[in-house]
């Protein structure tokens, strides 16, 4: 009897504490702009305001192709169910037209909507929380005064009850979403700090390039964690390793190479593709040269993650081709299907046809991106408003799973490349996952 009573008391006290904590955590957070009077006219030149929106790449997720920018609707998959990006145009009824600067700040940096509900962390507020007050003010300016209001109601998520309750997200936030603006490291240069600010904050590079833990949280939100930006799987792609690994990261890239990729979509090592295409088309190509240089300086300061095998070019493959030696599995298919663009030497053609020899994506441990791009090709890169002429073609109709596996294995083990083989089963799985008519097609997760 006594024990039961004690247990009962513990349970009651536990429930009271839990409800109390949930209540406290679900309070409206405070914003430095709480006392700011309503803003009725732009405070910044529109170029400055729109530049912050470019940095944060809001348009990539909050828009659907062919529909008004920022009017929402893009479906995003999650283990719980599908969710839809919202209308963030200044429409008063369906968008964020009634948001004050403080409301806007709470949504962007703390993941709390005006009505108090918690946003899903597919909105990268754990990264945006590092943005400065001034950048948030500019962003607010942009959305209130530069974006056309569009009346388009938000779509309900496809997440079933009880998982669709938002209040438990406050616990997630308490554990995984810091709310501290980026602080300059005095021992680093101004350029490095600007780069760190852009990469960790508005650029939210880690949303794709950092692996996620059990609670779908990024395992590191800055360079204090050595898995930060070390590459991660998402949406059937493997976002590449941006750390200093010689073979599989940016170890062989110069700062100028990084700037060139983010500015033009290409350099002598690689070409943007997959979900990075969205980031390039909508965001990085619009950044100033100084900001791109800062990003390069910061990324080049990240040491390798884990083992760091070295890659060197081996011309044995080229010699075999010259002697019409097609004994290596996949060699014959490579000649017929791939060599026209990537060359028998695997070196591509300047900056326009990417090399396969030593390409970090080709020799990365995870072959997801290689299989995906072989099956589905690359999307269209648009530079300065001009769609580009060089683009990977899809082979999903032309080649069988075993043939794609053979080609992938061949390019991962030629010209000095030394990455694990790819199986037909892996290709078959991704083929089905990326088939628009399949009942479990991959839809965009987080980017």
């Amino acid at each position: 009897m006594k024990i039961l009573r004690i247990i009962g008391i513990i349970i009651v006290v536990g429930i009271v504490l839990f409800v109390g904590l949930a209540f406290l955590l679900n309070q409206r957070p405070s914003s430095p702009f709480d006392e700011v009077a309503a803003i009725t006219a732009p405070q910044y030149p529109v170029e400055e305001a729109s530049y912050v929106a470019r940095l944060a790449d809001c348009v990539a997720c909050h828009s659907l192709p062919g529909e008004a920018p920022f009017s929402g609707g893009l479906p995003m998959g999650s283990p719980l169910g599908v969710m839809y990006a919202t209308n963030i145009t200044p429409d008063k009824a369906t968008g964020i037209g009634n948001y004050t600067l403080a409301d806007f700040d709470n949504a962007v940096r703390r993941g709390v909507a005006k009505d108090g509900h918690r946003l899903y962390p597919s909105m990268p507020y754990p990264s945006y929380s590092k943005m400065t007050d001034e950048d948030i003010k500019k962003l607010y300016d942009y959305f209130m005064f530069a974006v056309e209001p569009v009346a388009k109601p938000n779509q309900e998520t496809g997440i079933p009850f009880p998982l669709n309750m938002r209040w438990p997200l406050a616990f997630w936030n308490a554990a995984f979403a810091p709310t501290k603006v980026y602080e300059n490291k005095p021992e680093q240069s101004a350029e490095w700090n600007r780069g760190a600010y852009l990469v960790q904050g508005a650029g939210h590079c880690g949303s794709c390039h950092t692996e996620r833990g059990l609670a779908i949280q990024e395992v590191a939100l800055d360079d204090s964690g050595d898995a930060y930006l070390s590459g991660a799987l998402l949406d059937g792609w493997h976002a590449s390793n941006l750390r200093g690994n010689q073979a599989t990261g940016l170890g062989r890239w110069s700062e100028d190479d990084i700037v060139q990729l983010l500015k033009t979509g290409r350099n002598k090592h690689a070409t943007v593709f997959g979900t990075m295409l969205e980031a390039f088309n909508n965001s990085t190509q619009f950044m100033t040269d100084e900001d791109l240089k800062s990003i390069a300086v910061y990324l080049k300061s990240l040491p390798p993650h884990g083992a760091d095998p070295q890659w060197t070019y081996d011309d044995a493959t080229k010699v075999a081709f010259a002697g019409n030696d097609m004994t290596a599995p996949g060699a014959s298919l490579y000649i017929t299907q791939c060599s026209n663009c990537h060359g028998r030497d695997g070196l591509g053609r300047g900056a326009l046809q990417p090399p396969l020899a030593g390409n970090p994506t080709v020799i990365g441990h995870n072959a997801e991106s290689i299989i995906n791009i072989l099956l589905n090709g690359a999307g269209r890169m648009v530079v300065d408003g001009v769609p580009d002429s060089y683009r990977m073609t899809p082979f999903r109709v032309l080649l069988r799973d075993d043939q794609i596996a053979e080609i992938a294995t061949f390019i991962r083990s030629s010209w000095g490349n030394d990455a694990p083989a790819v199986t037909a089963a892996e290709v078959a799985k991704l083929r089905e996952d990326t088939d628009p008519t399949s009942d479990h097609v991959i839809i965009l997760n987080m980017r």
Partner: protein
Amino acid sequence: MAVNLMINGKATEVDADPQTPLLWVLRDHLGMTGTKFGCGIAQCGACTVHIDGVATRSCQFPLEAAEGVKITTIEGLSADSSHPLQKLWVEFNVPQCGYCQTGMLMAAAALLDEIPNPTDADIDQYVSNICRCGTYTRVRAAIHKAADMMKA
């Protein structure tokens, strides 16, 4: 940007954006329309030329990579249509509509340079050009005959 090209043994200067595909440099800037546009994505082979002797699809070959290499187009395969393949193409009535055939000839010629006596498998591998009229069997027969002739 001015780029110096070596086309069919002749030094040629072209002023064009370095990203321009070689196909359009040939056709639009130099008026060499023997090389055809088919798909634009290096799949069909209608635009095949030789780069340093290797059959290459010019629609995906950027001008910036064309400096310092030897380019041969259908106009340069022979001075007077006397290449054995060109003669056999007539004799065997290989072309039907003909659109893909300049690329087909260039791929076949590069193959015979590399492998003087190709098997059917070699032909399939190196001449992956696509023909809407389905002239493949005549293409194959003409290549085999040319190999015999060139051996003799």
